[in-house]
């Protein structure tokens, strides 16, 4: 059974018909072609599919797309500004906080949700914010360093 949704993705209004049971990750990747969001486990445990819905980090693999009428969704494609990487993305590169990169879009989204709400987080708050993002290559130290650095860069730029 199809249902209509009207929501915002990366600042653009989107009106589409989707299956009532469609997951947000499928609508983003298959319908809208936004393949930056990755599906890992499919059950909300690995965080690779993390996107921001109304300011909060959520797993798009366990989010019902039909429920998003009026929602504001940001994916990894909506993070950079005018072709320039944002502070989190740049800091992840500078700190070598990725290897295979599959988990990275999700980590960036978790970090962005954290810094947008809390511009000056403690190390523990950073750890809690990314505890739902599994990375099997890098380890987490570089990721934590990168997010702390990104927070500093954001504050000096303001």
């Amino acid at each position: 059974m199809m249902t209509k949704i009207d929501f915002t993705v990366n600042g653009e209004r989107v009106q589409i018909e989707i299956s009532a049971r469609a997951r947000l990750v499928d609508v983003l990747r298959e319908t809208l072609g936004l393949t930056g969001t990755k599906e890992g486990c499919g059950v909300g445990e690995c965080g690779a599919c993390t996107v921001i819905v109304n300011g909060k980090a959520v797993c798009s693999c366990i989010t019902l797309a039909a429920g998003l009428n009026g929602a504001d969704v940001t994916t990894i494609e909506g993070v950079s500004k005018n072709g320039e990487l944002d502070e989190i993305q740049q800091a992840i590169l500078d700190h070598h906080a990725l290897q295979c990169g599959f988990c990275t879009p999700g980590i960036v989204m978790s970090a962005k949700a954290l810094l947008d709400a809390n511009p000056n987080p403690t190390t523990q708050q950073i750890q809690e914010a990314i505890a739902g993002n599994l990375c099997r290559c890098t380890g987490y130290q570089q990721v934590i360093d990168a997010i702390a650095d990104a927070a500093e860069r954001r504050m000096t730029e303001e």
Partner: protein
Amino acid sequence: MQQLQYACPTTLDECLLLMKEAGAEAMPYAGGTDVMIHLRDRAACVQNIRLLVDLGKLEPLRGIRLENGMIHLGAMTTHAEAAHSDLLHEHAPFLAAAAATVGSQQIRNTGTIGGNVCNGSPAADTASPLTALYAEAVVQSAGSTRRVPVPELYGRNGITLTPGELVMEFVFPSFAGWHTAFLKLGRRKALAISRMNVAAALELQNDGTISGARIAPGCVFRSPDRVREAEEHLIGKAPSRALFAEAGLLSSEEMIRRTGVRWSTEYKKPVLEALVERALLQTAGLPLEET
């Protein structure tokens, strides 16, 4: 599986009517963190579902408020909202603490307390403090309301709600002034389902003696419940490591009495005893390690 339909009622009456009409074919949708996985797995519990009823736009199911000494916790309160609620930190701190241990930030942002309980898992983290608080679920259907103590929501085969019924909110007395703790044993720090947990609360008199006690272990009995013998054992006495160790022992004896000796008992018995003892030590502000 049948074609699935989606409805997003904006009033409670509309929601209850939809659920009444669809009966057992309706599935309430709260945060979706469990339902979406059941749908993906085509699990038995969603085989006959033809209507998802999204509860996301129902205002009466939201918010936390204090009314005449009772806390009303909306069923659609997310774990993140509960974990950061000033009202809960004052009136039921161990419930906020339990909510903060659920899943990851992403899960806490979407998953709800109502969903945590109504999913029917005896490992639900928030069910232990709700049990210790004597929380009642306000269960609404088209035309009737009933109040059910949280442990009684759990039946032999999952949750005891009948088709058309919806948990609106949880109501419990303020525990302001009590000392509380929630301890959880998981396989790792984040994103772990409880292997076992304990919610404990103590009311202490000015002379230091215990005048009220609640001990509610999770994943120990068939459904969340208190250990009354261990609670009663504490009343009128002063907090001490030895006393709390006795409460731990009474708790494990109660577990064996109710569930019998199983393959896991050799593990669960000392773990439950230690968790109860430590939860009570933390509650009373005593050091966890012997000095």
